[in-house]
C-alpha cells in the first residue's frame, strides 16, 4: 500500500486489499497475546474526528491504535468548536497544528475526507462519509469472509436492504468484486441508488430466490426513518419482503455466512433467530475490525529505516 490516505476501496485495488488482509492476519496474533501491544507506532499521533455518532468504529480504531502504541486524541464534535460554527477547514488546520500523523474522520457528508486531504499534511483515513464509503468496514468484512470461506473467487454474496443510503454497501461492492466474488443487491427499488450503471452487481427484488445461492448474505441496517420518508410502506412490510426472518433461515445454505455491520435492528432486517444462528459471524466481524484497522494504521503510518523496503509479509513475521 503506497498511498498516504485510505479514502475508498478503489484506491486500494485487489493488491492493496490483499496486503491489508495478510497483515491483519498477523495482527490477530498480537491481539491474542497476554499483553496485546507492539511498539511499532510509538511516537505517532492519531486523531479521531467524528462528526457523526459512532461507537463501534471509533472504539475499534482506538483499540487498534493502542495495540500499536500510537498516541490518540479525540476531537469530540458535540463539545467542540464545530458546534460553535467553526468551519471544517479551520477545525482540521487546528488539529494539524497540534502535530498529528493521521486523522480518522467520519462525517455525514460524502467527500469530506477528500476535502481534508487538500488542507492538511496528515494521513486521512475515511471512517465513513455520508452514503459514500466506509473502506475499513469493507476490509474487515473481507477479512471475516476470507477467514471462514477462504478464497473469494466465484463466491456469491448478497447484500440486502437499504443500498441507496449505505456507505457500507458501496465499499463492500467494490471490495467483494475486486476480490472476485459475484455480488447481488437485494432491495426494493426505492432503496436502490438511482443508477447502478457500471456497478459490478446483479439486482434482485426476490430474496427468497437469491438466498439458496449465496455463500454469504449481508444484511444492512434499516434506518427507521425510511418509513416516514415514504421509501417503504412500513417496516412490517419491509421485514416480511426483505428481512432475514426465521422462516427464510432454512433457505440459507448450511456453510453460508450471515453478516451485518451493526448495530442491528432485530426484528426488522434480521430476526433474532438469524442473528443468533450458528452461521452468523456478526461478532467475529467486530473483533476482526481491530486487526484490520491495526493493519491500515500500520501501513499508512509505520516508517523508519528498519521498516523501509520491507513487505507486509516479512513485517508480519518480524513482529
Amino acid at each position, binding site marked *: 500500500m503506497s498511498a498516504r490516505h485510505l479514502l475508498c476501496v478503489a484506491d486500494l485495488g485487489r493488491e492493496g486489499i490483499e496486503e491489508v488482509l495478510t497483515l491483519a492476519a498477523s495482527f490477530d496474533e498480537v491481539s491474542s497475546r497476554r499483553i496485546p501491544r507492539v511498539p511499532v507506532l510509538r511516537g505517532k499521533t492519531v486523531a479521531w474526528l467524528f462528526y457523526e455518532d459512532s461507537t463501534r468504529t471509533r472504539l475499534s480504531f482506538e483499540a487498534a491504535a493502542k495495540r500499536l502504541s500510537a498516541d490518540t486524541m479525540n476531537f469530540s464534535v458535540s463539545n467542540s468548536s464545530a458546534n460553535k460554527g467553526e*468551519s*471544517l*477547514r479551520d477545525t482540521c488546520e487546528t488539529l494539524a497544528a497540534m502535530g498529528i500523523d493521521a486523522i480518522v474522520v467520519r*462525517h*455525514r*457528508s*460524502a*467527500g*469530506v475526507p*477528500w*476535502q481534508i486531504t487538500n488542507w492538511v499534511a496528515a494521513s486521512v483515513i475515511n471512517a465513513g*462519509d*455520508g*452514503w*459514500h*464509503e466506509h473502506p475499513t468496514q469493507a476490509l474487515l468484512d473481507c477479512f471475516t469472509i476470507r477467514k471462514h470461506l477462504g478464497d473469494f473467487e466465484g463466491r456469491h454474496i448478497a447484500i440486502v436492504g437499504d443500498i441507496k443510503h449505505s*456507505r457500507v454497501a*458501496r465499499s463492500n461492492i467494490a471490495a467483494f468484486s475486486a476480490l472476485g466474488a459475484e455480488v447481488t443487491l437485494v432491495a426494493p427499488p426505492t432503496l436502490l*441508488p*438511482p*443508477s*447502478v*450503471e*457500471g*456497478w459490478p452487481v446483479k439486482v434482485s427484488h426476490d430474496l427468497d430466490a437469491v438466498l439458496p445461492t449465496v455463500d454469504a448474505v449481508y444484511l444492512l441496517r434499516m434506518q427507521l426513518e425510511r418509513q416516514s420518508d415514504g421509501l417503504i410502506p412500513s417496516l412490517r412490510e419491509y421485514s416480511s419482503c426483505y428481512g432475514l426472518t426465521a422462516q427464510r433461515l432454512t433457505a440459507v445454505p448450511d456453510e453460508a455466512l450471515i453478516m451485518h455491520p451493526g448495530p442491528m435492528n432485530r426484528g426488522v432486517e434480521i430476526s433474532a433467530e438469524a442473528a443468533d444462528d450458528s452461521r452468523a459471524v456478526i461478532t467475529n466481524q467486530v473483533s476482526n475490525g481491530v486487526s484490520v484497522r491495526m493493519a491500515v494504521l500500520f501501513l499508512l503510518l509505520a516508517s523508519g529505516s528498519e521498516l523501509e523496503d520491507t513487505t507486509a509479509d516479512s513485517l508480519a513475521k518480524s513482529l
Partner: protein
Amino acid sequence: MTDSLVLRGGTIIDARGSRRADVLVGNDGTIEAVGEDLSSRRTLDAEGCIVSPGFVDLHTHLRQPGNEDAETIETASRAGALGGYTALVAMPDTTPAMDCASVVRDVLSMGRAALTDIIAAASITVGRKGAELSPMAELAELGVRIFTDDGSGVQDDMVMKRALEYSLGLAPFTGGGSVVLAQHCDVLALSQGGFMHEGEGSSRLGIPGQPAVAEELMVMRDLALARVTGARLHLQHLSTARSIELVRAAKAEGIAVTAEATTHHFTLTDSCCDSFDTVYKVNPPLRPISDVEAVRAGLGDGTIDAIATDHAPHAKHQKERPFDSAPPGMLGLETALALAVTELDLPIETVIGLMSWRPAQIAGSDLHGRPVEAGQPANLCVFDPQEQWTIDASALASKSRNCPYEGRSVRGKVRHTILHGEAVVVDSEATR
C-alpha cells in the same frame, strides 16, 4: 460628458450583419459616426477585433445588498465590463429581496456608478416565498421588465398562473412594453435535499441527487400556463435535453417563450463532482454529456435565445464546506465570451447574438444590443476572437474566486468596453 474617441480598424458585427468600419463615439454617449478612416483626439485600437454591441447578462447575482463579502455591484460590474458586458440583469435574491420599490430603487441607484448598466429584475412573489404577488405594477413603473423568484421556482400552480395573468395588464405602467416572467424551473418536491445531478455519478458518490425531471416537470407546467394565459415566459438556465426539446416544441407551436442556458451547462459535466470540489456545485446542477450536447444544439438552432452566466459569487470560506452544505453557484462574467468562442462550434455572429441583442430584447432594453450605427447608444464591446489566454481565478475582478475554469486555455479576449461613450475597459484593463 466623456471625450469622443474612435475605435479603429475593427470589424463591426451586429444584428444587421458584418462590415469593416471605424466607429466614432461622440461625447454625448452615442455613436456619432460609422465609416472609413474616422479620427478623433483619442483612438482605441480595434485591429483584428470585432466591434459589437455590448453584452447583456440576463442572470447576474450582484450580492448587494446583503452579501457584500462575496460581491458588490461595483465589483460585479467591473467583472462584467472586463467580460464585454454593458448591462447586467440583477437577480432579486438579495437580502432583503428585490420584491418592493425601495430595494429596487436602492439597487438601481447604486448601479448608476457601476461599470455596466444595472437592469433590475424583481421577484414575482413577496420575499421570493412563492405565495403573494409582489407589487408588479409599481415595480414596472420603476423600469422592471423581468420578474423572477430565481433561486427557486414558483412552486404553487395557482400562484404562477395568476402571476402570468397579472403580467398581461402592466402595459400602462411600462409605457407600453411588455414584461416577462422568468422561471427557475425546479420542482422542489423532487429535488429538495439533492446536491448534484441524479444519475450514475450521484449514485456512485453517495451524494443525494436532483433528478432532471424536477426541472422538466416545471418546464412542462409553465409552458402549459403560458399557453393558456398568453403571457410571456422566459425559462432560466435550462440544463436538460428534454427541457430543451419541450421548448423547441413550444416555440414551434407559437407559445411566447424564450430560454437561456448558462456557460457552465455547455462546458462542464456532472463528472466534475467526482473530486468533491464544491466549485462545481451549482443549481441547476451540472448534467451528463448528453445534456451538455443538447444545450449546445439548442444554442445552435435558436431554441435557446441567450447565453447567461448565472454569475453567483461566494466567499471562499462559504465554499470550503462539505459538498452538501456548500452554497451552489459559480462565477461567469469574465469567462463567458471566451468559453462560448472556444467551446461552441457556432459562427461568431450567432455567439454575439446569444450574448447581446437577443438577451437585450428579452430584458426589454432599448439601450443595449442596438445596431452599431450613428445615433445609437455607444454601448460596445471590442474583442479579439483569436487571442489565446489562460483563465487564472486569482486574477479575476470579482470579489470571489469560485471560478470552475482555473487553468483552462481559451480563445477570445475582450479588449475594450464602452459604456454610454465611456471607455470603461481599455486594453483589457478596467479604467476605474
